């Protein structure tokens, strides 16, 4: 309990620090939203011409997008400092973390507050609204209750991946381009239904780098779609379990990384 209270205080402090730059706050949110609107705009341009992508209509695509936006929004809220983690290692900032009587991971995670979450949530809700409307989703009680669970699982997947790739910095020091590829570029994969990719890639995105569980598989459940591609009906509900597995593996990787750092220094 005491530990939780300490982390909350740490987090509250990082929010205060972020709020020192209020002016850029709103513009930042505006810029992120422009980016996402641009992305959805390109989807619109394509669907305007081609009507659907492998059986996915505009409304369904927008719903896919909303699941994605929610998951990444919350992931950014919690795991944002990990993006610049290599800098902490290179600058020796991580030494500072190690001389405090708290878990290094907890300190790193709660040392930064990311405002982009607000933008993601706005995009998420807007996309959810239009997706529901365009695709005619029927919200049963079961669906409503499971929605946050699926988003939570998505956060564990996206956050776990972030954690694992961050830990690579313990070995390579500078890993910006890896972080960029794995965290940002890979998001591009699930902007589209993953059944557009060949079987090998579908397998990869399902079992090895399981980001397809963030939106593609659970979307089938919410949209009442029947399976396609590699999909087995059981995968529809796989998100929370996959999330937990990914997260456990990542925390383990991180711990191994910290041990490596403690034996080699920087």
């Amino acid at each position, binding site marked *: 309990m005491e530990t939780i209270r300490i982390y909350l205080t740490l987090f509250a402090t990082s929010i205060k620090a972020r709020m020192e730059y209020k002016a850029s706050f709103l513009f930042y949110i505006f810029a992120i939203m422009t980016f996402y609107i641009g992305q959805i705009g390109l989807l619109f341009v394509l669907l305007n011409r081609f009507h659907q992508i492998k059986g996915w209509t505009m409304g369904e695509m927008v719903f896919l997008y909303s699941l994605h936006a929610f998951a990444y929004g919350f992931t950014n809220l919690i795991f944002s400092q990990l993006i610049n983690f290599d800098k902490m290692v290179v600058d020796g900032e991580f030494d500072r973390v190690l001389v405090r009587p708290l878990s290094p991971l907890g300190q790193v995670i709660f040392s930064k507050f990311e405002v982009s979450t607000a933008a993601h949530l706005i995009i998420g809700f807007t996309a959810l609204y239009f997706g529901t409307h365009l695709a005619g989703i029927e919200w049963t009680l079961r669906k409503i209750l499971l929605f946050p669970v699926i988003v939570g699982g998505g956060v564990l997947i996206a956050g776990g991946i972030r954690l694992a790739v961050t830990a690579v910095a313990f070995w390579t020091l500078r890993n910006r*381009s890896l972080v960029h590829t794995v965290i940002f570029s890979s998001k591009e994969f699930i902007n589209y239904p993953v059944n*557009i990719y060949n079987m090998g890639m579908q397998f990869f995105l399902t079992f090895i780098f399981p980001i397809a569980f963030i939106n593609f598989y659970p979307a089938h459940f919410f949209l009442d779609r029947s399976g396609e591609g590699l999909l087995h009906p059981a995968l529809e509900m796989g998100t929370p379990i996959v999330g937990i597995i990914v997260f456990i593996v990542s925390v383990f990787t991180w711990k191994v990384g910290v041990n490596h750092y403690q034996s080699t220094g920087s």
Partner: protein
Amino acid sequence: MKPELFFKFASISFQKQVTYRFDCFVGIVNGFLYVFIFTSLWKALYSQFDTTVHNGFTLTAITTYAVLVMAVRISFTMDDSIIYRKVMDGSIAMELIRPTSFFFMNLAENVGHSLFHIMARTFPVVIISLLLFDISIPLEPVRLLVFIFSFFAGYILISMLNFAAGLLAFWFVEIFPFMLFKYALFTFFSGGIVPIDFFPEFLKPLVNFLPFQYMLYFPTVILTGRVPMAEVPSIIISQLMWILIMGVICSLMWNAGKKKLVIQGG
């Protein structure tokens, strides 16, 4: 600026990049990832119809476009935070006492950066793509020559855009939102993902009003042969006009920034 000096700066910046071999390999994966996603996307879209030509592109033509536009884009990768960092740590003041043009020094640094990207990323990505996808590039020497010219023009345009965006650091504490905003517009309007030909009519005036299509779309379509040779001169004239306009904007901003630096001491 003397050419020797230009090459010296470019070479230093090139060597800086080579130091991180890990980043180098990841960079190839990152570039190929985008190529893979978009070629898959086009294949999925085209497979839904019996028609083989959409908006003037066959599947081979659009695949070629997807690969080459990404190749051009990767070649154009530059560190757009250099100026921001120089303003923040005050080293920008050094630029005022140097006898060289800041813009050209910055360009030299970018060229070194890009030269590295062309060798270490563009070529590998293009070679892998040539092996994996159905691509056809017209091998006409004249076309290749005008492409190189248009490519450089596009490169200078992007450098100027980044330069101007970086100079905003004189007036704003945080310029990341501007960078993101710039990136959002660039991603949408440059044709980097969806070629301009697919844009609906109502967006065309806006696309034509902005400089972004001259950075990626036009150099790429000159290379793929989508544009008849007869139209090439007018495209290059437009590129040069935009360089002129951007050049005026850059020098106005740089002078205003210098004045601000001299008066307020940063």
